[in-house]
């Protein structure tokens, strides 16, 4: 059975007009998909495509208006399940400054486990191991505001890891970081995934989505494409029509094909393109 099952999910945000009458705005208009245990799934889409709303439905921060979300068999809309769901699925958000609550790094990482009522010795172990896991062990007694954006985001990830979840949902964790910070955060996510963590990574950087096993493309509250990065990025024209880009290697490969240079389909990375071009030249 899939770790996450989303069935016909619909989500409405409810606002009230001036007279106090509710107005629904439908952010997710009926989506279904599965996420396997131990996989790395990227969700891409424009602002307003529904991807962040979808993310918040994956750990019960938002509950479906219609349809169902099940985490390891637990229905998120059943109130008794909510703590178990949050225990299984942790979240990391976009702005590192909005997620850090303590004046000392290790206190911040301990915040979640402390709220679970865990034994202090066990908290110590979890905090140390989580900080080592994001390569921030040397900073445990530092003040978070002295750290770079990428380092702060790693602290936020350590806070999620210390909850010992089975899955982490990253909601655009790299959007506010410089290239070095982005590499660090993506590297940590991949590293956690290689150790068995299920990862859902929401991003608008296509080169980050290219690292996933599975890519879901959202637009207007619906899933427009789904598949391996190779399958999704080969549909360049559709992606462009959704105002999403493709990696430069994919763009260049398709321009060359149009000009009659024989480049095989399914090129995704620079290395693959360079090899294809040198092989075509050798013939």
């Amino acid at each position, binding site marked *: 059975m899939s770790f996450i099952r989303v069935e016909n999910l619909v989500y409405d945000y409810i606002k009230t007009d001036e007279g106090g009458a509710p107005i629904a705005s439908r952010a997710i208009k009926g989506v279904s998909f599965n996420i396997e245990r131990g996989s790395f799934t990227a969700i891409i889409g424009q*602002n307003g495509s529904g991807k962040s709303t979808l993310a918040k439905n994956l750990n019960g921060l938002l509950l479906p208006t219609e349809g169902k979300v099940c985490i390891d068999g637990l229905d998120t809309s059943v109130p008794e399940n909510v703590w178990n769901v949050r225990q299984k699925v942790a979240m990391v958000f976009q702005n590192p400054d909005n997620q850090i609550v303590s004046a000392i790094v290790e206190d911040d990482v301990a915040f979640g486990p402390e709220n679970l009522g865990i034994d202090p010795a066990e908290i110590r172990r979890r905090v140390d191991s989580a900080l080592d896991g994001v390569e921030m062990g040397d900073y445990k007694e530092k003040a978070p505001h002295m750290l770079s954006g990428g380092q702060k985001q790693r602290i936020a990830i350590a806070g999620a890891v210390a909850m010992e979840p089975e899955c982490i949902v990253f909601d655009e964790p790299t959007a506010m970081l*410089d290239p070095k910070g982005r590499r660090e955060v993506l590297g940590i996510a991949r590293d956690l995934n290689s150790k068995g963590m299920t990862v859902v990574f929401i991003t608008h950087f296509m080169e980050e989505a290219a690292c996933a096993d599975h890519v879901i493309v959202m637009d207007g509250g619906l899933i427009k494409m789904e598949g391996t990065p190779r399958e999704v990025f080969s549909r360049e024209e559709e992606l462009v029509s959704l*105002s999403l880009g493709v990696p*430069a290697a994919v763009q260049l490969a398709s321009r060359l094909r149009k000009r009659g240079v024989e480049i095989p389909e399914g090129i995704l990375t620079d290395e693959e393109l360079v090899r294809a071009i040198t092989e075509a*030249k050798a013939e």
Partner: protein
Amino acid sequence: MIEVKNLTHVYNEGLPHETTALDDISFRIEDGSFVGIIGHTGSGKSTLLQHLNGLLKPSSGTIVIDGVDITDSHTKMLDIRRKVGLVFQYPEYQLFEETVAKDVAFGPSNLGLGQEEIDERVRRSIELVGLDYNHVKDTSPFELSGGQKRRVAIAGVLAMEPEVLVLDEPTAGLNPKAHFDILKMVQDIHVREHNITIFVSHNMNDIARMSDQVLVIHKGRLAMNGTPAEVFAREEELKSMGLALPEATEIISQLRREGMDLPQDCLTVDQAAEAIAAVFGK
């Protein structure tokens, strides 16, 4: 014209944690140029920008804009702000007024202009950033989307009618469409106003595509100053500073290493496609 001469800035001078953020920087920017600044986080880029509009005063050196030395203590701050408009990173966080029109009017209201002139500038600036004046003027800036908020914040700077527009990472945090739209807007403003535009970005594709001149800042020094083609030809130096090439230039460079005869100065996917196809006689 902007002329920066021997600009040096030392933070905490004379204290134990004294740091030289800018070290003897000199360069010149001609009227009407579009200039890209690149450098690692912590290289001194933001310190340099803050000198350009007088937020920071140098430890030594001068900045002369159209014959006025803005580092001179007799130069009025208001005159500097009229010359140089600085758009910070995430400028939408600085919106504070109840309506878009009031927010944009804040800067010009402090210039002692008549109400008619202020209203005219507000209308013009809002239109310059590609928003519909009548549609947005009375809305709260907080009800707008992220990309629209950023446009309003930029309009607030444009309403000062600066001769030089400086933008610190104008596309940070924006999704691909908003990213493209904001850059298009900055380019359109540049074409219409013939101003000097200076922008900082980590996106080498944008820097290569848009700039006439590229400045590379590394450890507080001006490491390179040239056209995009000149700067991005110095691959090894850039990589040693932790900076990347534009994506297309990187692919071309790898093909050159494989022994293919390709020009080094391909900066965009179109140029790269053209050059590679030519090798195949296509």
